[in-house]
């Protein structure tokens, strides 16, 4: 993740599509604390965390929609504030809600967007609209939620962007539509110069497509790295209460006790297996990892 950066402003040589270095932002009741992570070129980074964890604030900071108190953000090797307009020609953004007024039609959007982006490709846009089965002259307000999201994606992908940023874009969509959308992202990422930063709390989607995972909670990065490494390092341990008492808590992220026993998450499965042989160990999903890390955070806060 923290690969060496190569900047060549003229030729757009860079290794990371996004580099976030120690950004902070304080609100009355929430703060982002020294957030740092990268989105390597040609990769899909899943940005996970519960609602209110700081995903949207981080994305807004990247897009310079809000100003950070400190830290630095580079996009394509350029400063996200100083070179904002140059950068934004190559960025596509998909929000959780439709940003276009309901009375517009896909035809109207084409007319608006083609003057905004120099590289707007009307043929590509019409192609996407047709591929998604969106009626070209139907008002947005009359489209289903899935259709609206597909239209947003069609709009985002029609100006040859090299970076796609999505903020909870698949939330609230049915699995069939989500699967179709993930296919589109796969197509997009086939070009190795393209990258995706995808924030979501639907971890199953990210488990399917993400190369890297960044996990944020209460404004702090709890975990980041290759998705496969994260999944292979973590596991769910199932044991009886008296067995759990004897386990070294160094290996345990957090645990849940019920009358039938204890379920716990370990973040070092190889060492754990070496030390405690014969225990029931299940594969941990990203959702499990997220839930147990958040639980640890909550428990720590309760303990003060």
């Amino acid at each position: 993740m923290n690969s060496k950066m190569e900047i060549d402003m003229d030729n757009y040589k860079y290794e990371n599509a996004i580099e976030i270095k120690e950004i902070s932002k304080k609100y009355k009741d929430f703060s982002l604390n020294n957030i740092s992570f990268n989105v390597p070129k040609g990769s899909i980074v899943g940005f996970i965390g519960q609602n209110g964890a700081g995903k949207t604030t981080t994305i807004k900071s990247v897009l310079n929609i809000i100003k950070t108190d400190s830290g630095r953000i580079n996009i394509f090797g350029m400063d996200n504030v100083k070179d904002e307009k140059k950068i934004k020609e190559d960025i596509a953004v998909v929000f959780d809600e439709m940003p276009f007024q309901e009375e517009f039609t896909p035809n109207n959007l084409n007319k608006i967007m083609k003057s905004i982006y120099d590289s707007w490709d009307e043929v590509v846009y019409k192609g996407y609209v047709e591929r998604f089965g969106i009626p070209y002259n139907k008002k947005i307000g009359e489209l289903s939620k899935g259709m609206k999201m597909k239209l947003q994606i069609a709009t985002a992908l029609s100006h040859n962007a090299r970076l796609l940023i999505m903020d909870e874009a698949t939330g609230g969509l049915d699995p069939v539509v989500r699967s179709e959308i993930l296919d589109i992202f796969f197509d997009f990422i086939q070009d190795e110069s393209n990258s995706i930063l995808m924030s979501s709390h639907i971890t199953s989607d990210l488990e399917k497509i993400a190369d890297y995972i960044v996990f944020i909670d209460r404004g702090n990065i709890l975990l980041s790295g290759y998705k496969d490494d994260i999944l292979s390092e973590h596991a769910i341990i199932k044991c009886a209460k008296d067995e759990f008492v004897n386990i070294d808590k160094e290996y345990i992220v957090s645990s849940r006790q019920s009358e039938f026993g204890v379920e716990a998450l370990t973040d070092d499965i190889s060492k754990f297996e070496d030390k405690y042989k014969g225990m029931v160990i299940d594969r941990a999903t990203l959702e499990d990892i997220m839930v147990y890390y958040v639980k640890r955070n909550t428990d720590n806060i309760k303990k003060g």
Partner: protein
Amino acid sequence: MKMKGLVYREFFLSRKIIILEYMFAFIVIVMGILTRISMLYGNMAMLDRETLDSADNFTYYFFLYIPVIIMSCPLFSVIRSTVTDFNGKWMEMQYTFPVEESGWVIAKWIKNAIISVVAFVIGIVNAGIIKSIAEQRLSFIKDSELKAIVIIISLMFVLSCIFMFISCRYKSYNGVIARIAAIAILGYIGVMLYIYRELDKFIVKHSEFDVEQGMGIFLMHEYNKLMNINIYVKLIIAFIICATAVLMYVLTVRQLKRREM
């Protein structure tokens, strides 16, 4: 020209109110023309001289200025459109576009400028028709009505610029309306106090008129005073209007650059 799409968007979103207001203005213009024809050549021409003069004066200005005011009303759709931009996701989306904040402001201003020019042209055509009914010619130099039309449209345009800034600053419809209402009420009270004070002085000075007559003559006197002000005062007023517009542009762009989302 990156803002072409934004101008298209502005017109598209305001199209219903523009069409509605212009249809309404057209009805008033037709009513005005018919009334003027009736006063000069129809049944109303049979009224006694004094009543006819008084009605003539009233209807002339009413049917000249009211359509202009109606046609300028869509300028204020800038409040709803700006607040909606903030409350929906559009403003966030707009920040992701490779367009400067000044471009967003100019896009709304271009729409307002086009509305103002159209209102001005229709206002002049209306004045020309009304004059020609009475077999008079419209003079750009002598006729104070044209100056009044320019003043009305300029004021409406500047007000729309002020309202846009307030909308960007306070972002909620209720918050914006409350502030505009407060400014309007203060302005109204100020104007009324001025009129009462001057009217009182006028009636004391001209005791030969009763209050009703005095008021009519006083308002006409004030109108003429306003239309025949010194060239330097005119320049100062023009400067104030332009300076206010420029100031509002700077403040609005600065407000948008703050990125308070």
